[in-house]
């Protein structure tokens, strides 16, 4: 019975959600929204679970003096400082998000710069990953390299400048009038074609597979065939 109850709840919920998609009349019409509100409430309370897990994890690290335990002290200090400032601001300003409050000061001048710093690292990681991906070892990698170079030339100012220089250089050939090509922005056209045709086609192919896979997975979950969310029991 312990295993059956979750399956019955999932089956009933799944069926109701499917029905609400096709029946706009009350009480079905607003059920999806209502379920989402319930989910938000439950998710809000599970943050306490997260808080408990995080605190215990780092307390164990500090107690056992595990590698890098000093960082755990910093983390717990930051966690409770943020929490404390949030409650203090809420009590003083009636909202933790009041501009100029201590909580928002912490958010604006500590959290946002830290997030931006992590995000900025992405540029360097893209460079290192691209270097490995574009090494022309196989025919596929060579194709990828060519496509990437063309895309880059079509998107950066250097591409336009290079194109103009090449056209100027070839202009000396008698009987060949390349001036009309200057206004065409060939690299930009190639870039648009790659992005609009092969790239979109591949993306949509994958997307159709994902959607159908998701539907089949959902049917398996609703029918109780897929039970991994109940720890597979």
């Amino acid at each position, binding site marked *: 019975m312990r295993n059956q109850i979750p399956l019955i709840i999932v089956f009933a919920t799944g069926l109701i959600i499917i029905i609400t998609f096709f029946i706009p009349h009350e009480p079905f019409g607003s059920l999806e929204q209502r379920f989402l509100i319930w*989910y938000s409430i439950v998710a809000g309370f599970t943050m306490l679970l997260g808080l408990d897990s995080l605190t*215990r994890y780092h307390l164990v690290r500090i107690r056992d003096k595990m590698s*890098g335990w000093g960082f755990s002290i910093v983390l717990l200090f930051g966690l409770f400082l943020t929490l404390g400032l949030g409650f203090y601001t809420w009590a003083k300003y009636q909202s933790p998000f009041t501009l100029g409050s201590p909580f928002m000061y912490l958010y604006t001048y500590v959290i946002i710069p830290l997030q931006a710093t992590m995000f900025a690292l992405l540029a360097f990681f893209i460079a290192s990953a691209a270097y490995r991906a574009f090494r022309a070892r196989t025919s596929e990698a060579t194709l990828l390299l060519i496509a990437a170079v063309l895309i880059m030339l079509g998107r950066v100012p250097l591409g336009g400048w290079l194109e103009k220089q090449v056209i100027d250089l070839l202009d000396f050939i008698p009987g060949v009038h390349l001036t009309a090509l200057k206004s065409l922005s060939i690299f930009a056209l190639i870039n648009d074609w790659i992005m609009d045709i092969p790239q979109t086609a591949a993306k949509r192919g994958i997307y159709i*597979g994902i959607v159908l896979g*998701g539907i089949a*997975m959902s049917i398996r979950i609703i029918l109780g065939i897929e039970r991994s969310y109940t720890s597979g029991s």
Partner: protein
Amino acid sequence: MKLIKDQKNYLIILVIGLLVFPFIVTSVQAEAIPISAPSNLKAYDKPNDGGRNIVLRWDLVAADTILESGFAGDEIYRSEDPNGQFENIGFALKGSGQYEDQSATDGKKYYYYVKAVYANGFAQSKVIGPISSRAQWFNAARLNVLIFTFLICFLVIWYIERAKKGQKLFVRRIAGLDAIDDAVGRATEMGRPILFSFGLSAITDVVAIAALSILGKIAKKSAEYQTKLLVPNYDPIVMTAAQETVKQSYIEAGRPDLYNETNLPFLTSDQFGYAAGVDGIMLREKPGAVFWQGYFYAESLIMSETGHSIGAIQIAGTTAITQLPFFIASCDYTLIGEEMFAASCYLKPEPQMLGSLKGEDTSKAIILAILIIIVIVGTLGVLLLKPLPLINNTFELLQKWFTAQ
């Protein structure tokens, strides 16, 4: 002397011109853009909705199509009595020509008129009505979705039944899933832990459920090999599900004593905070195998490149199309989109699982065939537009039916 006289004449002309010019401009504007009332006003109950909505449509006034004409927009008035007091219920911006009254009470009869607002006056349309709103029991615009839902469900259940009866179903090899055992074995041989991440998946993402079945398989192997499994989490609900899955796998492997809840901690619900936390764990613990399974955003490459830098074997799987190139570039194996959903069937090849997979593939084949037919009809429709307009009309009909929402 003549020069002074000429200057005097010019001055008089200039003064007269300045005095008369505003009147000329005003009269020209008034002539060019006459104040007119909105015409052809129609109101109807909004189709396929849950009620309380009435849609109003009217033809744009002449001034509506001219820039800086002094026309501001249309005020909407409503009353329950055509001869009673009308209430202003909203404003339609210039160029819209329609308004949706979302405050109607179902079954109650309403009368409407629209007032065009100009810089120098108003013009009111005729009063129309009575109109009432009502809720529909079926969203007819979603008939296409209903038909396809039935078709896909039928195919999935049909193939499940056939598989149950003993029909053998073929599943192609998926390299990323075959490599799971090798990756766990490699980490064990190196004496390093295994790291598994769901990315930013919430439990409402189907991909998180698919990732749970992969986690179950990895956890069982790691319990058998007595290798530490780390699962840092972004979402507390996913964390709870992951803890239960790993615990169950350890029990199934006969090693419940090895299960340690602190190896599956919650990190943070902040995207880059999570990326920083996972990177920190990887740099400290140096896992031998890393699994990125779930939904990822911009943090995917930050984490997988760090995994590459510590020399871990990495197996990724996501349905986030934009992140797939990053994983392909930085990981050893990548499960692309639907391969993730096939993972549970692949790892647990029971008839019911395999049957659903076959049903999914058949649905895909049907959709592909429909796409090809529509492309052919559409192309022929354009090529034979004049001699055979019927083909183009058929294409437009098909397009309309398939894209209706």
